[in-house]
């Protein structure tokens, strides 16, 4: 009876949590988009959205960067996945590390590093001009797509290389025996086998591309997307238009939702399982093919990690104010230590608190969802899909909309930032716990019960130790997302709650790249440590980062 009460309590608690932190804010966004600034009910905002070219352009541009990012990520990711999983590539693990670096670095750092190299006064561009080659600066759509392709290719790479190494070699041998040429084999056997992974990875790139705020903001130069439009409308000091910002948020949610469901559909569809008796082997290429494969892999890997490399190098350069000087030193780090320590502290506190909450609540709810299959848990499972489709900027705006006035006022507090991170990452923790629980055979607990342990003791002594590595690893990966979170924090921060990504963004806007680079390096180090710990617990499992 007491167990029943405990789980009923969990169910009620979870629904209250979801209602307060998710359904209510998002509902407010929906409702607020239906009112004009004077407070009258209207479809005017949507009418405006449909009629004003400014918004047409933003929607079109969002789709363009989405599909462009998807195409670029597919191209780079599949080339890399194919080469790494089918050919002997010297330093293959290092290449995977480069992909992880690209994945865990904040995207706007990528944007800025590319500006440093290829911007109006960029290093490479100036260098090329001196030898007489004129090159257009990287601003605008082209630049955004380059950054997105290089930032999001790891999604495709990690998914496809996983799938490729699971294609039973006998299938290709059978095709060979039936007289198919290597090209035919690739397109008629291997390609259909990895298509689900390919499309799932590509759509993941799309979803992240349309939600990305930092890159179009820094590189766009007039190239606006929905995320930047929403932020502009919200943050304009004069004529801030909250209801129009929420209208755009709703459009962004709808687009995002469409592709999240497509992504889930694709990753479930046509997943072939075969026995893995005949594992694929890597071919050792010879001659120019070998050189080409290595050049392709390393080019993609290094270009993807370039922003990180640039940041680390620039973080050690001497500066005078925002201007770089010749020579290297720890000046930028000293500046952070003496002036911006509170920012680092903020980021660490917020992330750690958020992760602790995520792990605690996520584990309990995960156990509930996995162990009790009722209508309620199915509904919960569905409700937990909502954060997946919420771009950070939308959550930010939604939180401002609901927690600014009314019974609970949280604007300007640390709590609002922590909660926004918490709710966005909670579904991952719930799913990690639920899926690792489902992998443990129920006979494990039954064995303990038959040996004389009560069901609760059996759960504590057998199941908990078995899922803890997964929970810790999941917590570490949540920490990586939490500490790199920009878009929702940018809407929610005030002077005392500035986090590292927000500060980096502001520093870049101020032109102080030295300090920004140093802070980005610290951020990267923290993320790296978390990923390392996660891999220690999970085994090296790059797919867990997706």
């Amino acid at each position, binding site marked *: 009876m007491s167990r029943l009460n405990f789980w009923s309590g969990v169910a009620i608690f979870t629904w209250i949590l979801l209602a307060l932190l998710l359904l209510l804010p998002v509902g407010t966004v929906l409702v607020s988009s239906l009112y004009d600034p004077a407070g009258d009910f209207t479809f005017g905002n949507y009418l405006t959205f449909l009629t004003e070219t400014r918004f047409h352009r933003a929607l079109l541009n969002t789709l363009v960067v989405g599909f462009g990012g998807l195409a670029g990520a597919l191209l780079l990711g599949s080339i890399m996945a194919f080469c790494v999983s089918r050919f002997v590539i010297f330093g293959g693990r290092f290449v995977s590390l480069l992909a992880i670096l690209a994945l865990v670095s904040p995207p706007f750092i990528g944007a800025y590093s590319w500006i440093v190299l290829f911007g109006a006064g960029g290093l490479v561009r100036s260098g090329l001009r001196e030898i007489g080659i004129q090159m257009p600066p990287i601003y605008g759509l082209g630049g955004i797509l380059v950054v997105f392709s290089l930032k999001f290719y790891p999604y495709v790479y990690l998914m496809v290389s996983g799938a490729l190494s699971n294609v039973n070699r006998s299938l290709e041998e059978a095709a060979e025996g039936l007289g198919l040429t290597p090209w035919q084999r690739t397109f008629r056997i291997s390609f259909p086998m990895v298509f689900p992974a390919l499309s799932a990875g590509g759509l993941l790139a799309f979803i992240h591309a349309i939600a990305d705020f930092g890159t179009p903001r820094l590189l766009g130069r007039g190239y606006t997307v929905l995320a930047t439009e929403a932020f502009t409308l919200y943050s304009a000091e004069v004529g801030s238009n909250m209801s129009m910002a929420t209208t755009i948020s709703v459009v962004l949610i709808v687009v995002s939702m469409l592709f999240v469901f497509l992504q889930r559909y694709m990753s479930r569809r046509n997943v072939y399982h075969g026995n893995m008796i005949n594992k694929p082997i890597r071919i050792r290429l010879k001659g120019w093919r070998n050189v080409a494969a290595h050049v392709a892999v390393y080019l993609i890997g290094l270009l993807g990690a370039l922003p990180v490399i640039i940041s680390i190098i620039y973080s050690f350069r001497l500066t005078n104010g925002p201007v770089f000087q010749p020579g290297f030193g720890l000046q930028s780090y000293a500046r952070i230590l003496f002036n911006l320590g509170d920012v680092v502290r903020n980021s660490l506190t917020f992330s750690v608190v958020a992760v602790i909450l995520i792990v605690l609540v996520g584990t309990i709810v995960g156990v509930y969802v996995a162990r009790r299959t009722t209508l309620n848990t199915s509904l919960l499972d569905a409700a937990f899909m909502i954060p997946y489709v919420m771009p950070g900027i939308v959550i930010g705006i939604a939180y401002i909309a609901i927690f600014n006035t009314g019974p609970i006022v949280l604007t300007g507090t640390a709590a609002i930032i922590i909660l926004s991170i918490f709710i966005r990452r909670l579904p991952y923790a719930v799913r990690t716990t639920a899926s690792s629980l489902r992998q443990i055979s129920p006979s494990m607990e039954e*064995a303990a*019960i038959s*040996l004389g342990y*009560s069901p609760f003791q059996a759960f504590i002594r057998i199941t908990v130790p078995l899922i803890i590595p997964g929970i810790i690893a999941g917590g570490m990966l949540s920490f990586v997302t939490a500490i790199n979170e920009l878009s929702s924090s940018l809407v929610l921060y005030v002077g005392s709650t500035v986090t590292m990504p927000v500060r980096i963004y502001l520093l870049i806007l101020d032109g102080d790249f030295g300090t920004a680079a140093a802070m980005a390096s610290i951020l990267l180090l923290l993320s790296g440590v978390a990923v390392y710990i996660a891999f220690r617990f999970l085994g090296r499992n790059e797919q867990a980062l997706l």
Partner: protein
Amino acid sequence: MAYLMVEKATKQFTPTFKALDEVSVSVEKGEFFTLLGPSGCGKTTLLRAIAGFSDLTIGNITLAGTDLRKVPPHQRDIGMVFQDYAVFPHLSVFENVAFGLKPRKVAEAERKARVEEALATVRLSALAERMPAAMSGGQQQRIGIARAMVIKPRLLLMDEPLSNLDAKLRIELREEIRDIQKQIDIAAIYVTHDQEEALAISDRICVMSGGHVEQVGSPQDIYGNPQTLFVANFVGTLNKFKNGTELSRLLRSVSLGDVAGETWTIRPERLVLADGAAESLGSGFALSGTVRKYTYLGREAHVLVETGVGDLVVHISNPGRSAGQHAGEPVSVLVPREALMGFDSAGKRIAIGG
């Protein structure tokens, strides 16, 4: 009163589906009792009801006179061996086996001695400190067996413990299980769908199908004297005669013409092959036929013969090394009267008398 009594056990899963339908069985102390049947016959449901992992809808289970349904599963003192081994991967072999002794408050020294004894019984002493994850299925199941018996349970339940192992190991381990059970003299209930395994290991077998008991008996009874067509069919192989004039002639000639049977059958090894034309013999009947196929299997050979009562398989033990029968060869098949098994329209065995 028997040691373990299951009376009219019924398990209703949905309003229309009963996994168990008034099943009654009893098991004596020290007896090796096997529940045999195809998947979905209710054998695992019954086992799990005895273990306490799922309760019956209606019915009684008593162990040594106490009502088991009132005892929560962790206080039933029943050892269980699982199909997927359920070895705890985060504990060493020793800790796995010692796991059940902790809640029993067994003193440190005795605990160590008992675990070592159990590990010696399953021949795993050398691996005591190893982690089980990398061990073979056979070794993991040995851990499972040691873990279940070290607590000296009142009853040992085994749920298809060998079905995930390869054939050779399965035979080896089933002999060991049998020896261990006799050695510690415990009542054991063993679930399997493998009829050969059931015959090899059991004191008594309970054949189940569709949630009810078909027959309970010794291996010899089950195989040699099946009481239903289902049992005859499920345990061992069976030739079914085609109904018709030829069958009537056969039955009349062995003076079974007036017995009202729906299905007549015979075991392939009870048929005898003779060369040339048919000739009657004392207590049987000779069918003339033609060889269709000859399959050589080493210690025996299977001959498929086309006869007037349908295609019959004849098992020949110790076939010669010289080439066997060829397709098209005429042969006669001798059908001994006492080997015939007749079943009525409900699948019940018909007595045919001497």
